[in-house]
């Protein structure tokens, strides 16, 4: 079993939420992913974004109140609420995360945040 197999359930929800937000943002790019989705996959972008918004709201409502409060505090100021930590660096603000945080095998068993930018962090090896 890996560290991520013992992941905090709220972190799992946050990762799903962040993936949905990435999808939603990209479908709004007229000359980027949105155009690719329309041209190659015939996606109705407006309808797709509306469906994703509904799903995002549903998942946000399923966060526990404490996590949701923190999520809502970070969200207005950041395009991404959950960011990966790669090689000890927060990929939200690009500041180093303390070794004690990223080095713990059970790091994903509790919700952790970047002390600098406040985003939730997800440690990728």
């Amino acid at each position, binding site marked *: 079993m890996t560290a991520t197999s013992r992941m905090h359930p709220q972190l799992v929800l946050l990762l799903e939420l962040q993936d949905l937000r990435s999808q939603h943002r990209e479908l709004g790019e007229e000359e980027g992913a949105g155009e690719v989705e329309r041209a190659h996959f*015939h996606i109705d972008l407006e309808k797709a974004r509306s469906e994703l918004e509904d799903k995002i709201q549903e998942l946000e409502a399923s966060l526990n109140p404490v996590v949701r409060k923190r999520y809502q505090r970070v969200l207005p100021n950041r395009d991404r609420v959950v960011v990966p930590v790669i090689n000890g660096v927060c990929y939200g603000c690009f500041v180093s995360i303390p070794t004690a945080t990223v080095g713990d095998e059970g790091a994903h068993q509790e919700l952790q945040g970047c002390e600098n930018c406040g985003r939730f962090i997800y440690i990728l090896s």
Partner: protein
Amino acid sequence: MELRELFTAEAVKLELEADSKDAILKELIELLGLDEKSDTILFKTLKRRENLGSTGIGKGIAIPHCRSLVVNKLCLAYGRKPGGMDFNAIDDAPVQHFFLIVAPPLEVSNQYLPVLGKIAQFAKDPDIPGRLEEISQPEEFLDLLREKAPR
């Protein structure tokens, strides 16, 4: 970067066993070699993308794709389902060939969209479905990419 350099033989499966849309996605995800929890999150993200509209682009080819936090680099896999299966493709034809593309939310080299476009272009070459049918070893798939994929 050429498509050939982004695939590995380990991420190529010429006899997909699954016989439903969900099971095909799971089998493709397994080819990426992630951990169990990442597989689960990735499946949900891909499934949600499929719910917006099938990634079956016709002529027996589908390109499931998404960005996800569970990967730290662009990950690709190819799977072939002999005989094909229903994937709600835009031409309603069975799909035999599946190209999976997963990218992290942020990429330094920004390869995701160009790679997605290249695979769509590769797949639309009228020779490709037939050539993919003839492959008997994963290395031959990589050779075909080297020969025919756009640069």
